[in-house]
């Protein structure tokens, strides 16, 4: 039969065959989305990579080719390194606390007790609230003269604390606000992981005489390592890109104590109009973030 049909029906050229006609209509479904990704996700990076080799301004466009000029300037820019240092400090304050606090809250809200659904919803409300509103609320609560937090501190007879206007307190305060806003997201991810651990594993461990502590380290942590990795990488990406609380509360101050890298790039690009230089910094940040997230994924994979 096969032989006969081969003899009798001449094969159409490939572009006329049904399979390829189908493929042609198929790609039409994806085309608008693919165009979006090309134009608004890939093209900006290519454009920015090009701009990073030029003296590029918003009004003047590509003005002068500098070669690696912007990158050389960046390595000599004391403020760039200071800004990277601030970002690294923020990362160290933010990530461990988000992950640890999320773990505690996930364990707490995972108990079979009434009202835990409400607790989870309460912790999640800041996640859906805009970061601008969250920043302003905390800016008011932490205000030195009229803020509620200082009123409470004062009621205990302690001196008022300048949270955002003191160069030692400003960055930890920004980190605290970011933790308050974002921790709920990680709680939900970790709680989903905890729920998926079969109860028999704990029962078996209890029979073997493992205590709470051992059960936590030998069962819980390994079983949710995937979720822990996700939460850590996600928090790291967030830490390196913090912008909104700095923009709305401290504008990088006092004395550059909160001059995080995204804010520095923003101010160079849109306050000083140095697009080429800002693009070069964006490229470096992109590179750093890729390396950091790949390293973290490696670190977690090693356990398995």
């Amino acid at each position, binding site marked *: 039969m096969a032989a006969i049909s081969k003899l009798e029906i001449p094969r159409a050229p490939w572009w006329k065959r049904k399979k390829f006609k189908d493929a042609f209509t198929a790609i039409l*479904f994806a085309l608008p989305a693919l165009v979006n990704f090309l134009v*608004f996700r890939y093209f900006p990076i290519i454009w*920015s990579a090009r701009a990073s080799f030029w003296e590029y301004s918003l009004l003047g466009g590509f003005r002068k080719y500098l070669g690696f000029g912007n990158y050389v300037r960046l390595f000599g820019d004391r403020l760039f390194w200071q800004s990277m240092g601030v970002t690294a400090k923020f990362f160290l304050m933010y990530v461990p606390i988000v992950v640890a606090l999320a773990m505690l809250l996930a364990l707490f809200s995972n108990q079979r007790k009434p009202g835990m659904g409400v607790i989870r919803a309460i912790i999640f409300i800041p996640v859906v609230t805009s970061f601008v509103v969250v920043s302003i609320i905390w800016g008011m609560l932490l205000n030195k003269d009229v803020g509620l937090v200082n009123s409470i501190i004062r009621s205990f007879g302690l001196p008022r604390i300048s949270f955002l206007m003191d160069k030692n307190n400003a960055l930890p305060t920004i980190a605290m606000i970011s933790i308050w806003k974002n921790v709920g997201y990680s709680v939900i991810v970790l709680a989903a992981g905890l729920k998926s651990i079969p109860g028999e594993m704990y029962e078996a461990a209890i029979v073997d005489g493992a205590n709470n502590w051992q059960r936590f380290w030998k069962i819980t942590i390994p079983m949710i390592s*995937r979720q822990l990795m996700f939460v850590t990488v996600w928090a790291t990406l967030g830490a390196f890109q913090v912008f909104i609380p700095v923009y709305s509360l401290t504008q990088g101050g006092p004395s550059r104590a909160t001059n995080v890298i995204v804010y520095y790039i923003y101010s160079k690009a849109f306050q000083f109009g140095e697009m080429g230089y800002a693009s070069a910094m*964006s490229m470096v940040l992109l590179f750093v973030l890729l390396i950091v997230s790949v390293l973290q994924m490696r670190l977690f994979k090693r356990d398995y």
Partner: protein
Amino acid sequence: MTINKISKEEHDQIAKKLHQKAVMRKTLNAIFTVVVYILIAIVFIMPLFYVIGNSVRDSRAIWQNAYPISLRTFIPFEGLTLQNYAKTLGLDPLGTSMGWDISRNLLISLLSAIVVVCLSLIFNTSAAYFFGRLWFPGKKYLLVFVVATMMIPSQVVMVPLYLVVDSLGIINSFWALVVPWYASPFIVFLLTQFMSDLPYEYDEAAIIDGANKWQILWRIVIPNTIPGLVTVSLMEFQFIWNEFYWPLIAISTKNLYPVQVAVASQFTESEPNWGVVFAAMALASGPIIILFLFLQRYFYESVAMSGLKG
């Protein structure tokens, strides 16, 4: 046998002791849980109540009650007024003349979020249909092309994105808020997983009945992915409603600010009217919080789905 030697009284005593111990532990545990419960509630909810409470009294009353702390600090017992809301919503000529009116900004946020959700439903769904259920040579590599964009951190590419959108000539217009986001690699990826889970027998039956690809998408795939579509629509809505960095750089006309940028600019004024700022904050975050309270399940679903990709 030693067991027999325990008298009834002794046995009762031991049982009573054990029972007391268990009750004690249970009570302590319950107290601990309640304390943590209240602590969490205070830390996470109190700031929001503070906003709502202060948005319904005038600035003078807010600062008069700020210190010393009393119940009045949190709950407005007297001087209740909706003036602040009237001023922010443009119902009070004073508010309009002072530039406190954010009704237009609220409308822009709402409109751009709705437009993006609709466009996203059209373009992301059809792209996911392509990736999840249709044949194309080298489709695998195209999916890599899509997934790779998710590795790009969003804030980092805002400056470059500005350059591209500027060259399209739509910077500082409503379209700048909408056009870059009409499709999302992340949502295409999520919906693709949803759609490839559907059994193919449905399609085959439909093909035998003479249905084409559009009909299969409309009659079979979409009705079976409704929960997924609701989830991603909420994700998009929340993303556009709360987005700040992009509109901050893309829009330079105050009339075109979305609500988040408008609120921030009110706050950074030299002499903000605090009652008005509180009311504006309540309006800028209220809709999304209400949406969350009614549709919690879908919000958690979106988190769980994004956690899966890790």
